[in-house]
């Protein structure tokens, strides 16, 4: 076995020291009738070379951003990952360590967590960040759960159709068990109607959950939405796109009380959906309700500055059923990647990245609008994503045809929005070149040609 040390002689010496007859006898506490007593029915062992060949063969069956051009978004994006991020994050001292239970030998992880928390506060304009959660979706749920306890309003939460549909599905799953009403306001026209929102929020509402830019790529009026929430004593919870903050106002400067984000954009590969990074930050007054790990600064016995996990009395290993959440880990390695990514970009790099996304997305939007068959669904301002409507209402065929031409053209919306079955979501990151965008437009322009040939 590749990772085992014990030779037969070692094993015998160890058994002698234990005073046991055999290894099998060590399993005597397991009643015989409960023992499997047959080999597991799984394939035989592979050597490293065979494993590599097997995995390479299977992975080569997939389309990926190395052989296809990716215009897919909806919460996971093909942003550029600088080499430094991979080089540092693949250091064994980072990725083979664990939660810093012993701070004296974990200062590297703790400092990185503290730097991450600081950068998330700088990015969002909030007071306090935790050391991360699982992903953007569960972070949104944790923020909503936090507002239930912070406002002591356990009856109702208001959200908007333009929030990521999967985030809303997760909320629904969690609420099923605890009996909270989820009211979803329409977003006809691409953004939330403030009048409709005003009608939905009342004095029983714990929070209003929105997304900026929203799931359709459009810009919401975060300030006005936060005011509506606050007028009724509800909290404003904003799920944001970290890259957009190179240009857009920070949610913390627009009245948000708790902010969350999917942090995958910050230096983490797309990996078919995970592991990702749940970003979460809040106002100072809510810190003791914040779930997850938090690194804090203190001094050691000699007065030297150092860092520890802090405010642990919120957490499950101390509070058990009374904890703020059941969360036990953070996404340490991905928070580290985000901290390195943000450090590499700096304020100017983030701004330029955001601007490239904006410019290229608008170029794509204008080009696609020139096609006969396709139009842009909404007129409102957008950042790096927008919705394309297919006048022939054959989105699945369009996507499949584009796939064959090595273009991942967009995310069909029908599965979440039945009245938008003729629409798909297109994302354009800083990585897309003019040539690639023109190829997408060309592909859409000529989408029927293959069928005509076959006809």
């Amino acid at each position, binding site marked *: 076995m590749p990772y*085992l040390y014990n030779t037969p002689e070692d094993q015998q010496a160890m*058994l002698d020291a234990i005073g046991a007859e055999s290894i099998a006898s060590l399993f005597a506490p397991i009643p015989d009738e409960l023992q499997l007593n047959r080999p597991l029915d799984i394939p035989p062992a592979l050597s490293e070379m065979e494993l590599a060949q097997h995995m390479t063969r299977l992975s080569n069956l997939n389309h990926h951003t190395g052989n296809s051009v990716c215009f897919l978004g909806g919460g996971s994006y093909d942003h550029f990952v600088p080499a430094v991020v991979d080089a540092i994050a693949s250091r064994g001292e980072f990725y083979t360590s*664990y939660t810093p239970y012993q701070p004296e030998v974990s200062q590297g992880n703790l400092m990185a967590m503290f730097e991450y928390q600081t950068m998330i506060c700088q990015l969002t304009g909030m007071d306090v960040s935790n050391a991360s959660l699982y992903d953007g979706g569960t972070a949104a749920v944790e923020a909503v759960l936090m507002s239930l306890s912070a406002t002591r309003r356990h009856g109702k939460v208001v959200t908007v159709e333009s929030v990521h549909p999967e985030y809303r599905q997760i909320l629904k799953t969690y609420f099923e068990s605890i009996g909270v009403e989820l009211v979803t306001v329409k977003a006809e026209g691409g953004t939330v109607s403030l009048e409709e929102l005003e009608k939905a929020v009342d004095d029983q509402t714990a929070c209003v959950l929105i997304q900026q830019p929203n799931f359709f790529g459009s810009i919401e009026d975060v300030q006005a939405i936060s005011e509506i929430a606050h007028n009724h004593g509800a909290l404003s919870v904003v799920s944001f796109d970290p890259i957009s903050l190179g240009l857009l106002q920070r949610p913390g400067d627009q009245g948000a009380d708790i902010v969350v984000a999917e942090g995958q954009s910050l230096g983490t590969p797309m990996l078919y959906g995970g592991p990702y990074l749940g970003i979460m930050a809040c106002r100072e007054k809510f810190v003791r309700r914040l779930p997850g790990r938090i690194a804090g600064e203190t001094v050691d016995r000699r007065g030297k500055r150092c860092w520890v996990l802090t405010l642990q009395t919120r957490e499950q290993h101390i509070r058990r059923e009374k904890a703020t959440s059941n969360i036990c880990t953070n996404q340490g390695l991905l928070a580290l990647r985000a901290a390195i990514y943000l450090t590499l970009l*700096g304020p100017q790099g983030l701004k330029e990245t955001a601007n490239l996304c904006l410019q290229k997305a608008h170029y794509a939007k204008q080009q696609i609008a020139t096609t006969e068959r396709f139009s842009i669904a909404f007129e409102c301002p957008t950042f790096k994503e927008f919705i394309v409507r297919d006048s022939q209402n054959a989105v699945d065929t369009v996507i499949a045809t584009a*796939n064959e031409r090595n273009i991942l053209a967009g995310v069909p919306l029908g599965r979440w929005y039945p009245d938008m079955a003729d629409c798909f979501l297109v994302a354009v990151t800083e990585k897309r070149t003019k040539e690639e965008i023109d190829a997408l437009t060309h592909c859409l322009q000529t989408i029927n040609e293959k069928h005509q040939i076959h006809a």
Partner: protein
Amino acid sequence: MRNNKATSLIFELSKSGRRATRLPLCDVPEQSIDSLLPATALAENPPPLPEVSEPEVVRHFTNLSTLNMSVDTHYYPLGSCTMKHNPKRNERMAGLPGIADLHPYQTEETIQGLLEIMFELQGLFAEISGLPAVSLQPAAGAHGELTALMVAAAHFRELGEERTNVLAPDSSHGTNPASASMAGFNTVTVKSNAEGYVDLDDLKSKLDEKTAVFMITNPSTLGLFDRQVAEIADLVHAQGGLIYLDGANMNAILGITRPGDFGADMMHYNPHKTFSGPHGGGGPGAGPICVTEKLAPYLPAPVVTHDESGYHLDDDLEKSIGRVRSFFGNVGVLVRAYCYIRTHGPDGLKRVSENAVLNANYLLSRVKHFLPVPHGDRCMHEFVASAADLKKETGITAMDIAKRLLDYGFHAPTVYFPLTVPESMMIEPTETESKESLDAFAETLFRITEEPYDLLHDAPHTTTISRPNEVQAARQPVMKWTAE
């Protein structure tokens, strides 16, 4: 080699105008930002992130890494966390472009290779657990617990049974009761008996028609296999309840016994423990769950299916509890688990558990002579020693010993958990340590118990910092850097 002078935060290295990234020029006709975005949404300035050069970034974070103990560099017998070797080949496989660079909303026909791996993994997890239906979606062990409890809740809702209680032993992980609360249940604690097993009388007195689930960790956090488990399952099932197995300790029983065969209805794996996924300084993990056929309809969607036309994502599960996270799951962690299982095969996995248990028993046989192990002479993959006697005689605590171990280049065991053992030290050697390394650890531990109180109480002495003032950190929390 460690650079002892490098203790600044990245913000303290920042200098206005420095930068590490140069982006390409815009190759599309550029429009003014004001014409594209509403003025009210635009920030005056970008966020005040640090401004540093690439060499500074590399040196800073590389120096930070050298301040950590890790499995790659140190023996790390942290109980309950299964800090085994993290194979490099798995890292390479998870980084293949055909895996790392897949978007979660690609259509099925463009990800057939990945779906084949995930489908096969569902089958591997099912066979190892003896529970046929698998969801790969949960993001961590605690998330798997919560998901399974939601599955149980949905099942009882459908039966029209109002079951409000989740029972868990006093030695259980803190996540068990916390997950139960989040799933809307009350937690009822079941006592352990003097031997460390579930107290059957106490269990019987707390079991009733309100019992939804009994959560058991078996082998337990004491490193003991509770041989009453089948009887416990019968008792709980007779009341109409379900058994949940906290799979944190699966490293002890791979190919030896299966939760589904000893009465569990639901369980989670911690692939970052049992199947060698790196712990990443605190994450990411994953928390796939396995359940019985009866509970399969309630699993989160989608699951991966296979027919003659290929592999599919089945999103259409009528009774599904719905989603518990965005996208498919922690694919990167799952791929590593798949590689680990395929590298071992049936014999290899069994040998993993055999050697994990052999190593733990060997270490126990050496440690028990100077640190009592209250729950007996034998264990499974880990054991819990107690420094209670030592504390009484000399004032030396489990914490003191843990801190002194750091001086000798060993990561400390888990201390003060489980809560049922005073001054507990939970030691899990794992199978990927040699006899020599176990001997060195045992000898060091013995030497420490002979050392004077003052030396231990002030330990560690050789690490970059001494013991931090955690009380101050909690009373006046400083959770971010601010400019002077």
